[in-house]
């Protein structure tokens, strides 16, 4: 760490997670509550990495049925057609609406996968005490946190289709079993991103600096 500057933790301060008030902590093990808003205080999110790993694991397991099982079951004049997320993308691509194919592919396949990979990378980089480009890794974290919600698009398409296409014998659309797995992946990865504490990335760098002779 640059000796001219300091972090809250180095000076024995904590910033409230909810209202950002800076508070001097005499007992870091039991910091109590924020005097301004009453929130429980913590210097870093509690058990951040353990929670992130557990949620990543759960999301990976659910990601498989979400992509293999059908997400929509269309019945047209008695003929049933089952579509997975990927076959939906391919359908759009073949019928010429490649913009929609791209939207669905990015939102439903690429974003959840990329988000899981980035969270795995960030957690590993903290555990292996990487000092490589902390600023970019923090930016990567902020990106992951903000794009994950866009994966819900497919669930909403399904909701609208199910509501609209109820034409009895002519055509009906039902939600397939993949829908709930897919929605769970989105929700769980949102919790995983929320549980990760980007300050851990910087803690490693400060600890490395503090261990070295100054100058």
């Amino acid at each position, binding site marked *: 760490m640059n000796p001219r500057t300091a972090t809250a933790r180095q000076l024995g301060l904590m910033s409230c997670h909810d209202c950002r008030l800076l508070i001097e902590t005499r007992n870091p093990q039991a910091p109590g509550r924020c*005097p301004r808003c009453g929130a429980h205080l913590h210097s870093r999110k509690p058990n951040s990495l353990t929670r992130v790993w557990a949620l990543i694991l759960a999301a990976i397991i659910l990601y498989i049925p979400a992509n293999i099982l059908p997400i929509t079951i269309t019945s047209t004049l008695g003929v049933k057609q089952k579509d997975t997320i990927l076959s939906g993308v391919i359908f759009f691509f073949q019928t010429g609406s490649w913009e929609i194919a791209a939207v669905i592919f990015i939102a439903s396949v690429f974003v959840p996968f990329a988000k899981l990979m980035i969270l795995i990378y960030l957690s590993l980089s903290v555990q292996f005490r990487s000092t490589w480009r902390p600023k970019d890794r923090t930016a990567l974290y902020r990106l992951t946190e903000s794009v994950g919600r866009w994966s819900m698009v497919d669930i909403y398409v399904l909701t609208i289709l199910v509501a609209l296409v109820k034409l009895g014998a002519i055509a009906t659309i039902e939600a397939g079993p993949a829908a709930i797995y897919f929605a769970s992946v989105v929700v769980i990865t949102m919790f995983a991103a929320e549980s990760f504490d980007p300050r851990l990335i910087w803690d490693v760098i400060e600890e490395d600096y503090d261990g070295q002779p100054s100058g």
Partner: protein
Amino acid sequence: MKKSNDTSEIDAVAHPDVTAVPTLSCHNASDVDRSNNSFSQPPRSSSWEVMACPDCDMLNRLPKESKAILLCVRCGALLHRYRPNSIDRSLALALAAFILFTISNSFPFLTMKKSGIFQETTLLTGVQELWKQGLYELSLIVLLTCVLAPLIQMLGIFYVLIPLKWTGRPAPCAIRIFRLVQEIAPWGMMEIFLIGILVALVKLGHMATIVPGVSAFSFGALIFVMIAAFSNLDPSLLWERLDLRR
């Protein structure tokens, strides 16, 4: 090899007004609460404040009420944005959002025409249909993200801001409600629902005619008004006004 590149990048991101806190002088900063849970008086106000970056824990010293966008000197996180007349603006926008929300939920959303059959839907039809098909969790997720979360956000803004504006004193449990408003914000996904509508329109375009209703247009407007209402909300101002120690 173990050196971080933080010092070299300070100038690239920092607004000239934001400085990192020198190790020694920080102990004199007036904004640091040293009472630790003794519920003392709030700190006296000054024109500078010291703030720990939420993303990297670096202490930044920044001018209060600056009109610039201020970023953390070390990691570039957004620390401050200028929000004039925050309370009035977010109240007015939340009211407009509430009116649009009511319209969106009381008129037909999309109508499908196919061989003389009309299938009319409202915003909630999809939620009910998923429930009927036994997909209860999915139905609840859609209900929460597209209806309940925005509703809670709007009502929460009213509950917290109206007493502050007209009596100057916070409502009972206002802190708890405001915390809920902030925590539920990532779960409001109306703008994503709008993209979902567009995709569904293209998907059904080849087999039927879809006519968007009044609700669909008010829903589109609602998204922008809601985002504006929320981005005018000034959490740091509100936490100061809601301070438990007052």
